[in-house]
């Protein structure tokens, strides 16, 4: 207890030292006076009395010191003095302090920003109960619908509802096994009197919430009882959607919302922070039980088709389950199940069934789709930002080294005056810690802004992405630790050395440039910086060039002066047979708008991120049954589609108004289609079909159009055929095929080609469409250019960030070189004076200074060029039509680095050359 009171009293004393000091002075004085008085009373003369009293009293200062040492915390008070002194010293050289703090802020900040995203993306667990016990059947990311063997090596990860239920029944190793829709869906949702809006939806099995161990914020989650054919349709709304789309309306629970005009009861609102089973740039707004798909899709519902694979299986594994044994068991189930379906056994499929298998994958982080897409990019960024941190540390080290040499005399004087070595070192330590702390605080801001900027650049659409830009504290701590260590090592070590030097020697040596060059460590650091900077610069040039190649690649279709938007006719309640009339009506209205030259409709647009594939059956051909051999993409479009995107018909004809419901079904195909299915033949007039050999005379080829890129700009054009919006095939015998054909009549994308630059196109279009049907949802009205640009968000982000890192590294390296060269000039000022006095020309002086800088630059290149080549090799997978070994790129990087380094060296050189010899001689 006593010690507690003591500590308390000591620490409070820290805050009013002044008053306590005065108090002590007065008390001691009164003590002496009392002694004097007593001496006088005893009969001494007043002056003698005072002398005697003082002699008896002893050393006043010593008493005060002893008293103070006891009164507060002496270590703290001297620390406080040191901190104030350090602040004063730093303020006397603001340039140095600012450069160090800015370097730290950028180095640490950039790192923390990138690692924050890495952590959020790659290392984060789902916000569910016990994520570690979640496992997925399947370790790949096949999407979104599949009806055959899934990969060449037999690895399966996408399952049909039927197969999922088989797994669920036969694998009690899973406490619970849920199924989730692989691809995200979107439906038009309407509630109350509000306008209908398109929302992201995901079908999940009834046990989804219980499997994940997630409750609800309001209402109840749906359960197994809600997931069977005939169950009353229910849904759960995400918290974010509840906030943004439904205005936090609590009465929504139990209310009816309309999904594609089908009534659904809102069971509940998911808890805040729950974003579903995966990190997606646009997370699901609504979860519905699998059985609800029947309600919405009718005969076309995937859930009722036993072999249509469209689900991922995600479950909670019981404790102590042997994973390999379970994998074997599930694989056996898979093969057994496949053996029951002709789709897999026919055409020799039976022979490859034994090769099919599944793998279990950890799913604590969710379905890692986005992670796999962005993972490689993030890893590249991690490497780049680590290099920047290294550069920053090197810069700080060389700045501190330069500073320490100027401090040498300072330290010598203080040592000579009797300062304790401990205090000198401690004071320098405090100074470097102060700098680090200031840098750390600034870095916090940089990392927050940086992570935010990266997220916005990478996913401009993602307003509710379940990732936050809040700096990752362990990472910030680590980066700070690295830079603090750098600061401490490079400030304390020289100070330690200086404090061990004989003060007299240092003092004698101050006027003599005993070592006329920057120290070896300093030069080494600059060389390393130049090398690292070259690596980053060459990476920057490579990626930027690759991005330019991607963006300026000829996709085979035109996007300039074109707008596109989406609409949902199905959600607005139109039936398939009413669509054609509606398209014509819209075509007229929109075509009449000023400036509009072409209007077209398509099921989806090229480079819009969608793609429909089918197996093509040639009339009179053999049914190969192998998807690779028969595969082609297809789009249902309106007659003007090819014109509206500027694609020419090279043979035969395009669609015309004569291609109606009563005339024979036609299709137009691209050149890749001809090459694959009709090599060396004239395809016009030939027949083919979809969905089976018996439909092989479904379409007659009317024409051939030139190739364009449909999805992946990195790949070549693939076979593609177009069918007109005016012809619906009524001959399908299977209900699901007929339903699919009907569904394909809904063309969700519209392309508008305009002449000139009409103002406020969107308003005009919305107005025109509202006159046709005010309830029709129209969304994502954008220029076609921006749709294409979205395909390169990732590449653009990486290229820009690399460029930012490259520029940063160039600045850091230049500052480093500048510092060392300036230091060289400062140290040799008197020598330069002598040289000039005895007749050296200014250009000779410039050359003398530059020689050192050029040597370092050359050494930097010697290290940097091989390192760049190595780094560029690692980046091959990020490059498009750029060789990782590109001499032009390397040369450009060398030139840019040379310009930076040249500027950094020429300034001190000019300063040296413009010295007045007389004054130069007088300086140290």
């Amino acid at each position, binding site marked *: 207890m*006593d010690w507690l*009171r*003591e500590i308390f*009293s*000591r620490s409070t004393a820290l805050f009013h030292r002044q008053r306590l000091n005065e*108090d*002590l002075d*007065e*008390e*001691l004085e*009164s*003590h002496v*006076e*009392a*002694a004097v*008085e*007593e001496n006088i009373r005893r009969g001494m003369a007043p002056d003698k009395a005072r002398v005697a009293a003082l002699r008896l*009293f*002893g*050393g006043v200062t*010593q*008493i005060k010191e*002893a*008293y103070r*040492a*006891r*009164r507060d915390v002496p270590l703290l008070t001297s620390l406080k003095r040191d901190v104030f002194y350090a602040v004063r010293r730093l303020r006397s050289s603001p340039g140095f302090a600012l450069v160090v703090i800015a370097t730290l802020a950028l180095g640490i900040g950039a790192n923390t920003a990138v690692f924050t995203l890495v952590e959020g993306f790659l290392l984060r667990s789902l916000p569910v109960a016990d994520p570690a016990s979640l496992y997925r059947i399947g370790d790949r990311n096949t999407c979104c619908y599949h009806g055959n063997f899934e990969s060449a090596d037999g690895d399966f990860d996408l399952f049909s509802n039927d197969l999922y239920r088989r797994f669920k029944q036969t694998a009690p190793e899973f406490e619970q096994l849920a199924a989730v829709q692989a691809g995200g869906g979107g439906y038009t949702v309407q509630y109350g009197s509000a306008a209908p809006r398109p929302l992201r939806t995901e079908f999940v099995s009834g046990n989804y919430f219980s499997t994940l161990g997630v409750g609800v914020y309001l209402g109840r989650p749906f359960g197994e009882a809600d997931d069977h054919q005939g169950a009353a349709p229910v849904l759960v709304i995400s918290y974010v959607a509840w906030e943004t789309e439904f205005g936090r309306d609590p009465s929504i629970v139990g209310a009816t919302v309309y999904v594609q005009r089908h009534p659904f009861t809102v069971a509940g609102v998911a808890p805040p922070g729950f974003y579903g089973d995966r990190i997606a740039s646009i997370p699901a707004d609504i979860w519905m039980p699998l059985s609800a798909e029947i309600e919405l899709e009718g005969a076309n519902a995937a859930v009722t088709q036993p072999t249509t694979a469209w689900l991922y299986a995600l479950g909670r594994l019981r404790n102590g389950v042997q994973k390999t044994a379970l994998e074997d068991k599930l694989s056996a189930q898979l093969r057994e199940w496949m053996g029951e379906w002709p789709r897999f056994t026919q055409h020799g499929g039976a022979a490859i069934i034994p090769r099919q298998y599944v793998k279990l994958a950890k799913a604590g982080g969710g379905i890692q789709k986005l992670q796999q897409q962005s993972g490689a990019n993030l890893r590249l960024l991690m490497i780049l930002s680590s290099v920047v941190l290294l550069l920053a540390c090197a810069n700080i080290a060389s700045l501190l080294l330069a500073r320490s040499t100027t401090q040498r005399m300072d330290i010598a004087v203080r040592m000579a005056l009797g300062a304790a070595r401990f205090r000198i070192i401690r004071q320098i330590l405090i100074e470097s810690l102060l700098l680090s702390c200031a840098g750390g605080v600034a870095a916090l801001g940089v990392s927050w802004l940086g992570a935010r900027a990266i997220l916005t650049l990478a996913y401009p659409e993602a307003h509710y992405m379940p990732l936050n830009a809040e700096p990752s504290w362990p990472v910030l701590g680590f980066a700070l630790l690295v830079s603090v260590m750098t600061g401490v090592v490079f400030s304390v070590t020289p100070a330690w050395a200086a404090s061990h030097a004989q003060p007299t020697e240092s003092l004698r040596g101050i006027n003599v440039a005993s070592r006329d060059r920057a120290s070896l460590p300093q030069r080494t650091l600059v060389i390393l910086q130049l090398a690292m900077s070259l690596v980053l610069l060459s990476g920057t040039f490579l990626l930027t060039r690759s991005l330019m190649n991607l963006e300026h690649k000829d996709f085979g279709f035109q996007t300039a002066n074109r707008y596109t938007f989406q609409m949902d006719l199905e959600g607005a309640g139109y039936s398939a047979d009413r669509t054609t009339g509606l398209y014509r009506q819209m075509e007229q209205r929109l075509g009449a708008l000023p400036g509009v030259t072409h209007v077209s409709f398509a099921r989806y647009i090229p480079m819009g991120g969608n793609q429909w594939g089918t197996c093509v059956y040639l009339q009179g051909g053999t049914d190969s049954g192998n998807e690779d051999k028969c595969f082609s993409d297809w789009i249902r479009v309106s007659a003007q589609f090819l014109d509206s995107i500027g694609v020419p018909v090279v043979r035969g004809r395009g669609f015309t108004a004569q291609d109606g419901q009563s005339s024979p079904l036609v299709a137009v195909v691209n050149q890749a289609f001809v090459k694959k299915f009709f090599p060396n033949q004239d395809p016009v007039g030939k027949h083919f079909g979809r969905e089976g050999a018996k439909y092989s005379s479904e379409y007659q080829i009317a024409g051939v159009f030139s190739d364009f890129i449909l999805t992946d700009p990195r790949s070549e054009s693939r076979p593609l055929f177009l069918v007109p919006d005016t012809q619906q095939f009524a001959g399908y015998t299977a209900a699901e095929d007929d339903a699919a054909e009907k569904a394909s009549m809904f063309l969700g994308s519209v392309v508008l080609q305009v002449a000139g630059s009409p103002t406020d196109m969107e308003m005009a279009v919305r107005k025109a469409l509202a006159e046709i049907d005010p309830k029709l949802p129209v969304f994502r009205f954008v220029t076609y250019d921006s749709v294409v640009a979205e395909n390169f968000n990732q590449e653009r982000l990486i290229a820009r960030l690399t460029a930012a890192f490259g520029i940063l590294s160039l600045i850091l390296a230049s500052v480093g070189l500048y510092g060392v060269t300036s230091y060289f000039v400062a140290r040799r000022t008197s020598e330069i004076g002598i040289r000039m006095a005895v007749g050296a020309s200014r250009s000779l002086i410039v050359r003398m200074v530059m020689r050192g800088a050029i040597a370092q630059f050359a050494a930097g290149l010697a290290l940097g060029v091989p390192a760049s080549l190595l780094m560029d090799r690692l980046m091959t997978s990020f490059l498009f039509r750029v060789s990782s070994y590109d001499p032009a790129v390397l040369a450009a990087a060398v030139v840019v680095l040379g310009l930076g380094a040249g500027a950094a060296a020429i300034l001190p050189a000019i300063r040296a050359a413009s010295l007045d010899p007389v004054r130069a001689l007088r300086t140290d």
Partner: protein
Amino acid sequence: MTAEKTDVLQGTLDLMILKTLQAMGPLHGYGIARRIEQVSVDALSVNQGTLYPALLRLQQRKWIRSEWGTSGTGRRAKLYSLTRLGQKKVGEEEENWERIVSTMARFLSPAEQD
């Protein structure tokens, strides 16, 4: 004058101060020093460099308190007095001290033990 004055032992000074304050009531630093010297019949000398830190230590433990007042001679002085906690502690410290003394005594004259 006595030839040798013994410096006050560390630790014993605290008890002396406490006893002095208990006996004399509020007293200033000089008074405490004089009183200790008087009681010891000038056998002890109190070093101010020890006295004042000791007073501070006792204050920090809240055994004594101080306030500015007037000394016996009408001079302004800082007067120390026992706190309630101090009153209690005087007794404890006295017992402690006596235990030490009796233990020491046994060491110094073991013959007298039985």
